[in-house]
């Protein structure tokens, strides 16, 4: 069996007396889509915040397996998770840079690479050829992703002026611009109509199949979850109550009970 991309082992997160995540273990595969579902307040977003360094987990470990390395994500603090480990994320409420252009949003995502190329700004000030070349490459990468989501014609408009569905897609490709190993999406289909969410499915499958990036997905929209997930983890009150394929999840009595309650 091939090694998993992400191994979460006995992850626990406490806020004072409240146990938000209780001894959670699961794993996510490379080029697979793993969905985390559960009722409101089940601790899904908390898992993401722990993974991406926004919270310091109380206990447990999260290992990211790259080709030759095994990184414990707990050792990285906020921005270093994205910078050093290559874990990208999006947010439940879209967090673009609204007053910057679409292209600029994607350029900021390639900040670390460009920062090195600009010789910590000094080479960049004098337009060194190596920096100009790197910047051109970064624009090409941005253009590549804009072509995929069909927003090339709006590249120079403010990101905040885009329609809601396009902002969602832009946030996802912005995360892809840091060239991540693992992409964590927090409710990407929230607020999308049927057509937009079908486009989203296509985009996610493209990322999975063509880019071989592991995707971790929090979602409430079951049509999205059932259609594209390879693996589903169900949380309730911070505990894992089920995991399996999408089909198995749909028919699992525990999951139905967590969502709908038991019959008296």
């Amino acid at each position, binding site marked *: 069996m091939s090694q998993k991309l992400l191994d979460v082992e006995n992850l626990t997160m406490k806020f004072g007396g409240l146990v938000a995540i209780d001894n959670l273990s699961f794993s996510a595969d490379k080029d697979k889509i793993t969905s985390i579902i559960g009722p409101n307040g089940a601790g899904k977003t908390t898992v993401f915040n722990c993974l991406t360094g926004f919270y310091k987990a109380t206990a447990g470990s999260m290992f990211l397996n790259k080709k030759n390395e095994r990184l414990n994500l707990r050792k990285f603090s906020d921005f270093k998770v994205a910078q050093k480990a290559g874990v990208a994320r999006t947010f439940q409420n879209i967090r673009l840079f609204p*007053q910057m252009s679409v292209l600029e949003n994607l350029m900021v995502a390639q900040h670390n690479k460009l920062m090195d190329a600009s010789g910590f700004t000094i080479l960049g000030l004098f337009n060194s050829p190596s920096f100009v070349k790197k910047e051109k490459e970064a624009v090409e990468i941005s253009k590549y992703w804009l072509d995929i989501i069909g927003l090339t014609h709006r590249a120079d408009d403010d990101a905040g002026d885009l329609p809601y569905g396009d902002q969602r897609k832009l946030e996802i490709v912005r995360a892809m611009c840091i060239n991540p190993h693992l992409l964590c999406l927090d409710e990407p289909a929230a607020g999308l109509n049927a057509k937009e969410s079908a486009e989203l499915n296509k985009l996610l499958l493209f990322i999975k199949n063509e880019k071989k990036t592991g995707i971790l997905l929090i979602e409430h929209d079951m049509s999205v979850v059932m259609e594209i997930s390879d693996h589903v983890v169900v949380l309730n009150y911070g505990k894992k109550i089920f995991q399996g394929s999408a089909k198995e999840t749909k028919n699992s009595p525990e999951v139905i009970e967590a969502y709908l309650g038991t019959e008296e």
Partner: protein
Amino acid sequence: MEKKFFQTSIKDSLFTGLIALALFGPIVGLRTVAKNEVLEVHPKWFIVLIIVVVCAVGRFLTNLYVYNRDQKTGIQSSIGKSISNFLDTKGYQIALTAIIFSVIFPFLPFTDRYLMDIAIMMLTYIMLGWGLNIVIGLAGLLDLGYVAFYAVGAYSYALFAIHFGWSFWICLPIAGIFAAMFGVLLGFPVLRLRGDYLAIVTLAFGEMIRILLLNWYQLTKGPDGLTGIPRPSFFGLPFKSFPDEGEQTFHTFFGIEYNPMQRIIFLYYLILVLALITNLFTIKIRRLPIGRAWEALREDEIACKSLGVNPRNTKLTAFAIGAMFGGFAGSFFATRQAFISPESFTFIESAIIVAIVVLGGMGSQTGVVLATVFLIGLIEVFRDFESYRMIAFGGAMVLIMIFRPRGILATRKPTITLEKSSSK
């Protein structure tokens, strides 16, 4: 309809007159004068009357022409709009004209010593505004203690120049580096603060530096200030009317008559060049990754972290570079005045610079120039009215906020565009 509207306008303007009377009656009308160790009241009812009439008539006119949106003759719909349009589309042309004008300014026929002094002062404020624009306009960090870096620059220049006798061109970068160090010093404790909290801490920092300068008597001579700061020389040629034996001065070297204006003109070009360097640097750095990261940080810090942008380094560089330009401006101030004391670095200076940046339109370089000319110019025009000139200052702010609520030049141009970079 028309008649009723007229009546309400008159009623409204009379009411405004009453409010003005209640406000300005005691403030302006009752003036106390100390005479023979007794305080006497000298009423000035005539001035009060003028103010009240101006308020009432002004209100009546605005009622008729500004707030009456049915009539297309409204100021806002015609003049205001065309000015707005002009400012939005012609930013580049305005900038170019301003630069050309400032280059030929010293040789224009009406230019005299007084105008040159004002121009030098304005350019100093423009340079400070441009420096602070990096911190406030780009990185979005509301810094109310910017004058501290101005002070650090001025004092470090003065101390190095007095004690070591180094020339302006050596002391200038040293002063900049010192100011940048203080920028980092301020930056570290406020890394986690945003908005109002950041504003309060930076304000306190500005006051701390001033009080330090005031009390560290051995080094800074406290309230006495530092005197005898060397004047800058023209690449080693001093400006002197009576040169020492065998000394080359500016006028003997070029074989012209001595004229005190020569030094003023030199100072003018010096600050012009320094300010333009600040401007060019900012325009360039905005297009580099670090500049884009500053703006991204202003927009959303959490999103920045999720993309692997280091918020600590990004903020500290903004503070350091902004402070460095403040330091440069400070050294220029020291060498121009030849005397500095903590009195020159009070909070009001910070407030004026912040006002210039905010009213100019945050992040806009040309906006800073327009706001400076408007605000500082008004203060100067009304100088004869003594402390009442601050009313003009306040009025100017109110006007800008009414007609251009996001600043004089609020349009932001993207730092990189697809068409341009693909056609290259």
